[in-house]
């Protein structure tokens, strides 16, 4: 088994003018794990995920994703990752079927492969009947599941999920996490940002970001023990408060 971490981040700094969005982040993500990236809105989660996906350049720091250098091998990285943004971005005016085929096509799958995977996906999601439906006519929960399935349709090594559960009801959220587990079982590393602390419990390891810095990084169990907290929410509040007093 390959023990080399799939994401290596060392001293990542991202500045927008004088504002420091990511302040010397350092962490590693192991192959096949579900890595949670937690923090309040504006803590710098999305900035970090965008850099890892090659959507934006870091100001400084050493980064490698799926074994490729973020500065020089962005094209290789893009080939090996999947990305799902907070908006479950699918095309409203295209059908479910057309959306799936489009994403499969831009990841360079062959025609035969596209047909095969589209069929499997339709059966799995139980959408065979609805495949001619426009995205704008289906419920949010479906959209979310579909967006996730589409993000991993090309079997990426890593999938980045940027707040994938925003605005979705708890039951659908639970079902969604089942899909994430399944992906992880199939060997896809999952990198997920969220601000729902209960979701943190589902991750193998979580890093908690406060004001652009990583305040803590460990398994949920270890974090709870360390901060003598009943749940992740308390852990987070303690960390956030500590940061505030530091600033004052």
């Amino acid at each position, binding site marked *: 088994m390959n023990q080399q971490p799939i994401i290596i981040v060392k001293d990542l700094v991202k500045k927008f003018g004088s504002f420091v969005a990511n302040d010397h982040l350092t962490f590693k993500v192991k192959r096949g794990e579900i890595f949670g990236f937690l923090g309040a809105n504006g803590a710098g989660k999305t900035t970090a995920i965008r850099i890892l996906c090659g959507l934006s350049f870091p100001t400084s720091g050493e980064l490698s994703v799926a074994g490729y250098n973020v500065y020089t091998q962005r094209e290789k990285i893009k080939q090996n990752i999947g990305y799902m943004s907070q908006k479950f*971005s699918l*095309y409203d005016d*295209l059908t479910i079927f*057309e959306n799936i085929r*489009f994403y499969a*096509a831009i990841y360079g799958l062959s025609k035969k492969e596209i047909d095969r995977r589209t069929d499997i996906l339709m059966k799995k999601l139980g959408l065979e009947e609805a495949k001619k439906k426009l995205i704008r006519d289906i419920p949010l929960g479906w959209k979310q599941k579909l967006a996730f399935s589409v993000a991993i349709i090309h079997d990426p090594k890593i999938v980045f999920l940027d707040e994938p559960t925003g605005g979705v009801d708890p039951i659908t959220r639970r079902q969604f996490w089942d899909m994430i587990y399944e992906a992880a079982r199939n060997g896809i590393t999952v990198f997920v940002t969220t601000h729902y602390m209960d979701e943190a419990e589902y991750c193998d390891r979580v890093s908690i970001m406060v004001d652009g810095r990583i305040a803590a990084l460990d398994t949920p169990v270890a974090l709870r023990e360390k901060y003598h907290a009943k749940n992740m929410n308390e852990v987070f509040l303690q960390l956030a408060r500590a940061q505030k007093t530091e600033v004052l």
Partner: protein
Amino acid sequence: MKRFRGFVVKEFLHIFRDYRTLLILFGMPVIQLILFGFVITNEIKDARFAVLDLSKDETTRQITEKLTSSGYFRLDRNLNTYNEIEEAFREGEIQLVVVYEPDFARRLERDHVANVQLIGDASDPNTANILVNYASGILTNYLLSMNAEVIPMKIVPETRMMYNQELKGVFMFVPGLMAMLLMLISALMTSLSITREKELGTMELLLASPLRPMQIVVGKVFPYVFLAFINACIIILLGWAVFGVPVRGSVGLLLFESFLFISMALSLGILISCVTNSQQLAMMISLVALMLPTILLSGFIFPVENMPMVLQWLCHIMPPMYFITAIKSIMLKGNGLFFIWKETLILIGFTLFFILMSVKKFKIRLS
């Protein structure tokens, strides 16, 4: 290439699914051309006029007769006093009043000078001007025919209007309309289609995918090149079939210039979408910054030479003027590339400039 094809297929799906926009895009040139061709015309036919004849002799009767038989004018009524003139205008049906002074014929005979007053309704200045000119022309003609026996010499000007013998307005409108519609489809539609992806957040996904930014941009533009081109052909065909607007020069060259202008407008559309993030803003910019200059500052409706100096300079930094000049020259004069190489080069220059600008902006956005 497989990826690129997938992307272009998706773009076409977007376009065909939105059949309302498609209908507008293809219906608009037809409707506009027909409107412009039939409705907006500078020709005068059957303009109503009134006569205040204070002389009532043979000569004035003959002049009135000439006016009526010219085809331009129709005698609406005879007035009896000056006071009735204003009233006649106010009713709005009379566009011109002709007043003969008392003793018209006798004064002409005796003093060789007689006065006739032409009063136009200048609440519509263009028409008033044209009507007064026509009427003066008819008067002069009448005078010449009268004096033919008295003065044995005369100069007969024989005029010929080159390239548009019948002075058809539609000859002007076809090139102008092409500029306007190609600009609209190319710049507006591309900028909308790119900013829409930004608004939806799908642009992020595209950028995170292995598609290269260049492929995204070209893929976005590609379907609109197609649509714009078809539209250009529709306008040319319709102008030719319905209004007899000729293509005297090479059709290939005409299509080439259209293609050049389309590329220019598309690169402008890309530039717009690089600097804006919402469809609304993109639409505002396209409509205000592109449509108005295309209509007003291009020689489409108002001649550039007659504008104040500052506006003329403005016209010279807007691409549509060059395109309209070039295609008019091809269609009406039958000129080849030799006569329009300057316009062609300028259009190429604009295209390169906009592409460079957008590439620069695109890079800034990514970093």
